[in-house]
């Protein structure tokens, strides 16, 4: 059994799907945030695997940027959770339907 890049891609697909299910499944805002991070992470795995296959450091740069964006997203996401929690003491996203108005 040779270890090919397909293994990494398959793993990445599985992790990504778990992340998607998490976003759709859970109603806790923080867990949704975590699931999104999981999806980003899964994509990073495939990027690194392909970059190593092609011996190209551009992929690493891309992952570097994804990490930075993830950090920004986490910061904003968390502050939004705090702001939401202040209007209504819960983090259940189903309790919030402000977008409707």
């Amino acid at each position, binding site marked *: 059994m040779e270890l090919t890049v397909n293994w990494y891609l398959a793993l990445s697909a599985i992790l990504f799907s778990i992340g998607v299910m998490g976003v759709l499944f859970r109603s806790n805002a923080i867990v949704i945030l975590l699931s999104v991070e999981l999806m980003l992470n899964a994509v990073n795995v495939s990027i690194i695997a392909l970059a190593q296959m092609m011996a190209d450091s551009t992929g690493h*740069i891309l992952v570097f940027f994804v990490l930075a964006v993830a950090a920004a997203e986490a910061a904003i996401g*968390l502050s939004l959770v*705090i702001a939401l929690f202040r209007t209504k003491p819960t983090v259940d996203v189903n309790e919030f339907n402000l977008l409707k108005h």
Partner: protein
Amino acid sequence: MIQQVLFLFLAVVAIGSALGAVLARSPINSALWMVVNLIAVAGLYITLNALFIGVLQVLVYAGAIMVPILFVIMLLNLGSMPAPSEIQWKHVVAFILGVALLTQLAFVLAIGLDALPEMSVSEEAVAASSAREIGKMLFTRYVLPFEIIAILLLAATIGAVMFAKRKFA
């Protein structure tokens, strides 16, 4: 051989911890599972010889991102969610969609199975993934995106402070 064993071990840990993060009832458990997952993925990077990114993963993700999340969870004093009393339609839909997506991705992989070469960690690949090489690229060819990312982070910081302020209108 050792490589395969390592990969399989890390992959199982990663998938298991991902499921744990998504399914855990208490958010604090979720976050801790997530940390495990991130470290497992960092290990995967290292099996790929991407040492720099692997270290970065632990530092930035497991450190800088997960710690505030844990802080917030504890700050808001979030307890466990009640166990779902019955199967909601939402969960069914989520599950179906997730499986459909996974099937499609697997299908893509199956089609491309032969197109991809074998995983061989060449000398070049090791050289290309070194911190020196990445740093060089980052400050020459990708210096503009790098600056933009810096501005993005600044904007995110300011935005986070604004949102979290008590008197935010």
